[in-house]
């Protein structure tokens, strides 16, 4: 099954990103295809490489970067939401990109499921 994920909150402040990540891992483990993760609202801040959490904590941006590259999907941040929140091409982790809401529409159309995580 092809699954798209929509993530609407930033890292650490809400559990949404953690749940979305665990869900994506489990879906892949069960043989499904994660087609893309789309970031909206504060969710766009999940992919800044400037993130530098304590060493004994998870690095949420790095984790998305690794999972997406390993399994061939992209983590896509909405451009309008990104601009409001100081996310641009220069700060993105590998495996992520900035794009428009049209891309989310394509994701919604071409996947069997769109699963949303947020606050």
């Amino acid at each position, binding site marked *: 099954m092809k699954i798209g994920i929509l993530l609407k909150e930033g890292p650490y402040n809400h559990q949404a990103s953690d749940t979305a990540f665990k869900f994506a891992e489990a879906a892949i483990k069960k043989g499904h295809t994660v087609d893309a993760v789309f970031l*909206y*609202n504060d969710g766009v801040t999940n992919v800044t490489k400037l993130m530098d959490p304590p060493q004994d904590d998870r690095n949420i941006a790095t984790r998305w970067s690794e999972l997406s590259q390993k399994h061939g999907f992209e983590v896509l941040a909405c451009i*309008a*939401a990104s601009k409001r929140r100081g996310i641009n091409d220069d700060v993105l982790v590998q495996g992520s990109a900035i794009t428009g*809401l049209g891309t*989310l*529409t394509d994701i*919604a*159309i071409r996947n069997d499921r*769109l699963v949303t995580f947020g606050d």
Partner: protein
Amino acid sequence: MHMENENIKKIMHVLRHAPHGTIYTYEGLEMILIMAAYEQDLSVVFIGDGVYALKKNQDTAGIGIKGFARTFMALDGYDVEKLYVDKLSLEERGLTEDDLVVDVEVLDAEVIGGLMKEQDVIIHH
């Protein structure tokens, strides 16, 4: 024509937050306007405090935030005509259809639940 219809997805946007206190309804509306260009079967449902987004006479100049109630009036021009409001949410807030900036269809929760069941994609904002 038949093949085209098969590719059309039913996508429902659910607005449940009051305007201005958070950005969810505003950025939700931005998403709806973009999706409207893709000729899918879009609908927008207002539940809970989401109905406040449609309230007439909002003037946001004093809080320094762009207002957007009037943008809902533009949805018709984008062929987004399926605007549904949860009846109980409206009543609980002491509002009637006359208090809203656009024409909507006021429906019981059970009917909206049925519409939800038909959707391919539902996005809450």
